């Protein structure tokens, strides 16, 4: 009996071992038949792209296609490492992936991971995009198109009407725009606001504002920020960076910032609790504000001109990874989503500003109003400047360098470092990050 039991056990162990080996061997075998059967396309995004209605429309006209979106509402910091891992592993990425412009540089450096859209008739679409947006999607040698542009980040300043009224400031958007033609005027208004003790700060956090000022200053000057167009790190020699830094330090010194670290839990709470009166507002930020402040704050927000002049922050692209098993179908869908029609649909849903000149001229955009922001004519405010937007060139380690400089701004904001010390940190850490 003992022998039997042991032999029995041995058999079980053998079966278990074989099963394990089998499972390990089968790990790579979930290929779907690539025939004409129904195709499921996965679209990976972050934040809000506003594609739901467009998917429905597309699925209705393409009955063999089913679309699944992943990552809606997620933070870019969570999304980009995941995307990189999928690309590195050669498995896991969606059939279409969204790429933010600041991160595009890194992906462009390794174009072998993506389908060259120029091989699939994308060259004909060039006229559908603002020139610089189209060029951003091209590799350095111009031979491969990684991504088709979705939106651009035209700039404005969003503000709380109720808090402005409480501080005795004008609330009408045109009057507010006249208050701050420059950033030093913005600081003066902030000081008046602060003197009235409304219980709220004038702005959310210095880091977002710093980014806005930097992209604006750089766009109006040489057209580059941390890296020059030959990819040399110029964080300490580019006057635009130092100028933006100094303006931000003036804002901090005047005590205008609520110091709510951007995108943190506290930042989100501060929206809900009406703890700040203004926030630098690229077009895509309007969707974020609505999401964070919630329906209760509807009609309390409004949109005015940004101090300084214009500027662009952010905007994304759609790319098709080479690992996709349904490349042809994915490319077709990407073309649809980035078409003028697709961009108008996304704008209506989540306020992302089109990168297509046709869409920017379309009455659907030009005449559009945003009910959440007191019916502000968002089409006029954002679209007017969009065609004259001056893009800022981003170098290879832009994201890592930007992280270091933003953190230095944050240490000055929190009083952990003096502005001079923080600047030294910014330069040193940026050099270190660029070398990694």
């Amino acid at each position, binding site marked *: 009996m*003992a*022998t039997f039991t*042991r*032999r029995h*056990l*041995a058999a079980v*162990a*053998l079966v*278990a*071992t074989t099963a*394990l*080996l089998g499972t*390990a061997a089968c790990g790579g075998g979930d290929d779907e038949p690539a025939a004409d059967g129904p195709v499921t396309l996965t679209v990976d995004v972050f934040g809000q792209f506003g594609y739901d209605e467009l998917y429905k429309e597309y699925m209705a006209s393409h009955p063999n296609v089913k679309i699944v979106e992943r990552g809606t509402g997620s933070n870019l*910091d969570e999304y*980009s*490492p995941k995307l*990189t*891992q999928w*690309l*590195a592993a050669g498995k896991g990425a969606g059939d279409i992936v969204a790429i933010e412009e600041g991160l595009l540089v*890194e*992906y462009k*450096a*390794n174009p*072998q*991971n993506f389908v060259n859209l120029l091989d699939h008739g994308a060259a004909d679409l060039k006229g559908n995009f603002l020139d610089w947006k189209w060029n951003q999607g091209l590799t350095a040698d111009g031979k491969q198109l990684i991504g088709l542009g979705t939106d651009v980040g035209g700039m404005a300043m969003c503000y709380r009407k109720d808090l402005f009224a409480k501080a005795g400031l004008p609330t009408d958007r045109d009057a507010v725009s006249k208050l701050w033609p420059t950033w030093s005027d913005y600081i003066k208004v902030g000081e008046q606001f602060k003197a009235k003790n409304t219980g709220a700060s004038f702005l959310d956090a210095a*880091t977002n504002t710093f980014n806005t000022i930097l992209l604006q200053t750089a766009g109006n000057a040489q057209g580059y920020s941390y890296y020059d167009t030959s990819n040399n790190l110029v964080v300490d020699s580019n006057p635009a960076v130092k100028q933006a830094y100094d303006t931000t330090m003036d804002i901090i010194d005047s005590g205008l910032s609520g110091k*709510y*670290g*951007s*995108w*943190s*839990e*506290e*930042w989100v*709470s*501060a929206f809900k*609790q009406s*703890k700040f009166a203004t926030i630098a507002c690229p077009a895509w930020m309007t969707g974020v504000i609505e999401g964070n402040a919630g329906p209760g704050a509807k009609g309390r927000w409004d949109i005015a001109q940004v101090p300084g002049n214009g500027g662009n922050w952010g905007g994304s692209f759609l790319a098709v990874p080479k690992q996709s098993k349904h490349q042809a179908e994915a490319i077709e869908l990407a073309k649809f989503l980035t078409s003028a029609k697709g961009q108008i649909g996304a704008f209506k849903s989540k306020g992302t500003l089109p990168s297509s000149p046709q869409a920017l001229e379309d009455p659907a955009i030009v005449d559009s109003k945003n009910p959440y922001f007191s019916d502000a004519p968002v089409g006029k405010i954002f679209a007017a400047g969009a065609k004259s937007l001056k893009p800022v060139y981003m170098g290879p*380690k832009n*994201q*890592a360098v930007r*992280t270091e400089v*933003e*953190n*230095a701004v*944050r*240490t000055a904001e*929190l009083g*952990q470092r003096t502005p001079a010390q923080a600047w030294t940190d910014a330069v040193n850490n940026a050099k270190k*990050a660029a070398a*990694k």
Partner: protein
Amino acid sequence: MAVQLDARPPVVPAARHARQSRGHRLSRFDTRYSPYLYIAPFFLLFGVFGIYPLVYTGWVSLHDWDLLGAEHTFIGFDNYTQLMGDPDFWHSVVNTLGIFVISTVPQLLLALWLANLLNRQLRARTTWRMTVLIPNVTSTAAVAIVFAVLFGREFGMINWLLDHVGVDAIDWKANRVASWVAISTMVDWRWTGYNALIFLAAMQAIPRDLYESASIDGAGRSRQFWSITVPLLKPTIIFAVIISTIGGLQLFTEPRLFNSGTNAIRGGPLRESQTVTMYMFENAFAPHYNFGYGSAVAWLLFALIAVVAAINVLILRRLGGVRKEDD
């Protein structure tokens, strides 16, 4: 080598029947090789999920390995030399050790005390014993998010309570020691009950008569605890310390989720609460994507855990030895 490892009577020799001989050979095979087969699943799993990644990480750490790049240049030990002189790495080591000490010491003492209480005659004993494990079965992410909100600078409940007793608001995320304390609270919340149950199990294995004779000799409860319970728990305490060391030095989820917003992986603007695993992630993934450097951090962390675990065991052995001489 027909040594009988089992209690079976010696097998009848010679090939009287072919069937019997076959059975004989089978049973010899069984005796010799089947034990290896029994333990094979573990080693197979360990090989696939333990050894292979370990060796592969070592291999990666010797390269300049961009996560997305197609070419990986062999650079020998350059990553390690660079890491040894990297102040941010040592900063994260200090953070990790700081959080480890602040969390583990009170945690194990508290667990010991809890276990001692649970070992007494209580009403609804099983309920109490199950209850201490509840924090351990809640998801780490949920715990971390709730605690991150509790420890908020402006909207957090802890600062609100401190305000009532006249203490100024603490910026838990931008103050190095404060962030260590906050994260340690999270760790203790989760692991104290678990360790208490382990100690409790060991306590129940201590013979009752030891306590009975001690009471007859007039030893009070606390004397019994320190002179009987603790010395006899030594192997269990060593186990708990080693497990806590491994877990504590690999701390990731709690500090990562404690820091929300942009670049949470840095653990605050001045890396106040960035642990070694977070530093590893920052380098291997966003924003640096330097897989080789990240792998080197992983190997140094491995070495660090081995060293700290060895020190802990030595200290505990020494403590036990002294006590024996006292008795």
